């Protein structure tokens, strides 16, 4: 594929494109009467492009892109579950898509946000929610700012946050954005948090709290979770739950009961809203009663005369985004929760775990499994012991040749050559069996035909790309 003449800009010509401009129906003055000439720009460097060319171009691009509707997307920590089409339909209805955030007649929208807050409260056990954050990492920042404000109002200096070495990169990055520094704890041989190290760190007196996900990024449930949160609380700290891995816990277990004070959720993971190639998402944050005053404004709360909006700035961390949050995404998640109901949500947790263990029990016969325990929604393999020096990257690229998307690679960092697999509950047994078959084929290729993996992918529109040159000499636009 020669990209130079396949960029959209090469499809333009000199024919003026006016298909999308309404007819001007008022009397006009000279533009220079309205705006000084020196403010007026030269010609815009975007060509006019015939409508048919635009359609063909993007249809062609879509065909060389792998989406979840094309096949399994076993990316660990991403929860690539089916995106229900009814959600898309409802999000486009005028009564939701054509309303302005500042219009007064917004009772339906505010009621929706309030309703989903209650539902998320029931699912997680938390007392109050904000739907403002636009993504999980944004939610993490909010949660950490809440911690910061909490200690500030108490007049106490606590400027460290504990994360395990298995944590997702956003955790320490968010902590830094909230002004904290990090203490990293080394996970023990079971992949769990070592209680003695935790207690030692907490004893120093300057730790605001811990950020954890449970099940963790190894896919295992930390059995000592109640001890962990107990220890943190004992020394006056708060416990933050990264909800990226909530899927297997739906209807089974709740972060509040584990002892967490602050929780963020990823609606674009657990609650089926589409990943969109990298967003938009939504990262609601739930807190205990004690922390509700610190939630960002505006806060939608229930009052005697209906839903109201609180702008009480006194304890709040302030505003973290304009308007109300990613409403279009919140709406999709709301429809999902209504569609599934109590039984459906519990089924999600059960089948997510069933599917992951089904894959694990078969794949561990060929691939190295560093933590040999029952997994929850995901599990981590590694390229240790692969024949012919085959790496995780080689395996991933060869999976692409078989028409599947590869699992997450080289994360979590505590497993060398990690290959992290999360099928989710919406994969059928057929789909899972196909994936196992392909992984077994690839193993035998690694043994007998390693060049196939070393040179993979061979069947995709393009081969392995030179990332080094791309970083040394970045070309970021045409």
């Amino acid at each position, binding site marked *: 594929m020669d*990209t130079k003449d396949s960029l959209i800009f090469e499809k333009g010509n000199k024919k003026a494109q006016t298909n999308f401009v309404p007819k001007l129906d008022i009397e006009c003055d000279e533009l220079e009467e309205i705006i000084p000439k020196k403010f007026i720009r030269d010609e815009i460097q975007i060509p006019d492009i015939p409508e048919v060319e635009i359609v063909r171009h993007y249809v062609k691009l879509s065909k060389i892109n792998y989406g979840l509707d094309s096949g399994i997307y076993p990316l660990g920590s991403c929860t690539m579950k089916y995106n229900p089409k009814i959600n898309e339909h409802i999000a486009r209805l005028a009564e939701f898509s054509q309303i302005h955030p500042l219009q007064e*007649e*917004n009772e339906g929208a505010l009621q929706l946000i309030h309703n989903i807050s209650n539902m998320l409260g029931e699912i997680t056990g938390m007392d109050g929610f904000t739907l403002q954050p636009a993504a999980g990492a944004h939610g993490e920042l909010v949660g950490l700012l809440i911690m910061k404000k909490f200690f500030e109002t108490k007049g106490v200096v606590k400027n460290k946050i504990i994360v395990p070495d298995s944590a997702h990169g956003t955790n320490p990055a968010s902590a830094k954005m909230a002004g904290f520094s990090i203490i990293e704890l080394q996970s023990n041989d079971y992949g769990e948090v070592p209680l003695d190290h935790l207690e030692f760190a907490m004893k120093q007196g300057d730790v605001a709290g811990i950020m954890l996900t449970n099940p963790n990024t190894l896919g295992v449930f930390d059995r000592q979770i109640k001890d962990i949160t107990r220890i943190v609380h004992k020394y006056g700290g708060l416990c933050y739950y990264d909800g990226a891995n909530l899927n297997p816990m739906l209807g089974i277990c709740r972060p509040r009961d584990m002892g967490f004070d602050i929780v963020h959720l990823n609606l674009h993971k657990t609650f089926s809203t589409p990943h969109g190639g*990298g967003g938009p998402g939504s990262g609601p944050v739930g807190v205990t009663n004690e922390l509700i005053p610190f939630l960002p404004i505006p806060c939608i709360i229930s009052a005697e005369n209906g839903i109201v909006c609180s702008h009480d700035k006194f304890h709040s961390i302030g505003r973290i985004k304009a308007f109300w949050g990613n409403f279009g995404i919140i709406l999709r998640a709301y429809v999902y929760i209504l569609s599934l109901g109590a039984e459906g949500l519990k089924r999600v947790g059960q089948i997510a775990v*069933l599917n992951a*263990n089904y894959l694990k029990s078969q794949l561990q016969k060929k691939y190295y499994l560093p933590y040999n325990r029952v997994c929850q929604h995901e599990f981590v393999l590694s390229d240790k012991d692969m024949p012919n020096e085959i790496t995780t990257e080689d395996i991933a690229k060869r999976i692409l040749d078989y028409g599947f998307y590869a699992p997450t690679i080289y994360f979590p960092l505590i497993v060398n050559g990690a290959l992290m697999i999360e099928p989710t509950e919406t994969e059928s047994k057929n789909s899972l069996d196909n994936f196992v078959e392909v992984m077994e084929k690839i193993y035998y290729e690694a043994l007998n035909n390693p060049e196939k993996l070393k040179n993979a992918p061979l069947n995709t529109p393009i081969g392995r790309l030179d990332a080094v040159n791309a970083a040394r000499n970045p070309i970021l636009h045409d």
Partner: protein
Amino acid sequence: MDFISHDDDAITEMLKVIGVDKIEDLFKDIPKDLIINGLNLPEGLSEPDVLKKLKELGKKNTIYANSFLGAGCYFHYIPTLVDFVVSRSEFYTSYTPYQAEASQGYLQAIYEYQSVISRLTQMDVANASMYDGSTALAEAAIMASIITRKNQIILLEGVHPEYIEVVNTYCWGQNITLKIVPLDKVEDELNQEIAAVLFQSPNFFGNIEDVSVLVKKITDKAPNCLLIQCMTDPTCLGILKPPGETGVDIFVAEGQSFGINPSFGGPGLGIFATKEKFLRKIPGRLVGKTKEINGEREGFLLTLQAREQHIRREKASSNICTNQALCSLSALIYLVSLGKTGLTKIATQNFQKAHYVKKKIKEIPGYEILNIKPTYNEFIVKCPDVDSLIQECKKLNLLPPLPLSKYYPEMKDVALVCVTESNSRESIEKFIKALELANNKGGRN
């Protein structure tokens, strides 16, 4: 509803392969006292039932025939091509394109988005998106603080009040001090300790600033200080001089006007573009072009990832991971559908229609246009009775302009009016009527 495919036979067989009797056995690591007995939520609904329920809820939101409200979220015509492209499930159900070889379609689209923003703004480099205009501005301030190693920021009055609040929160998180200053007093506040000056043009009240003059004033006094411009409706770039030609260092904007439905304020699009020299400090994702390792074909991939949180972790300058990819795809399709002709015409219509309404308002006694500087599609009007105006608008099925008292209680007689190309002559005539009716009811002239 449920989206699980397994029947009971499949489940039985899978349990056998795993080697357990029942699904509950797979949760054995969870302490017994943490296992709950199901959720206290209603039964799930089927598709027609959930649609019915949402439609009932939707009825409680009013849809107006026409809008005169802007203030950070705008009604513009959205070409049908936009929804056509973003509805293709190969795009919207895909993940972040980390596996470049299977994601060339989306990667090329993001590269085209970065390119089209560069072309439109004449800034050297644009990233793949931030959450929205407000957080893009906040992250730009933090980026400036990191680059200059200074922690004082000046913000000029006229920035959207909600954006100011967001920047305030982010700065507090990083112990950066924020000072809000009137535009004409900026030189008095400048010194070598300032990391950046943040300003909005066209500003919240509609005023278009002479950005080149402002930039020169600031760089003369504080040459190491970064200039950050934000914009809430970038369709004005169809006519206005682009930021790349005025000397700003970082340009951020709310991209909702580029093909994204208002949707009660979200999702939006944070446009983020900078000068070349700041490339390695830009937050967020970047798509680059490169060649195959073992071939000659060119392709696209995520690059400079060492800046990002998943590699740099606590040393990253931003924690952003998921951004607004599908919204940037919407913006791309909007901009290429309109092309230079369409963008020029749309911007011209916004200028002309707002100007037309201003002229009509000047003929109504009791009202006063308060802007002295040129304006784009928004301007502020002193009214005899803002509440009356709002009522009259609603009676005529018009979404009323914003009463400024919402953000500035001392400005209780002022309304912020927005007129775009989507306001027909008919709707404008109705608006004028509403103004006249409100005048008769309200002020004693």
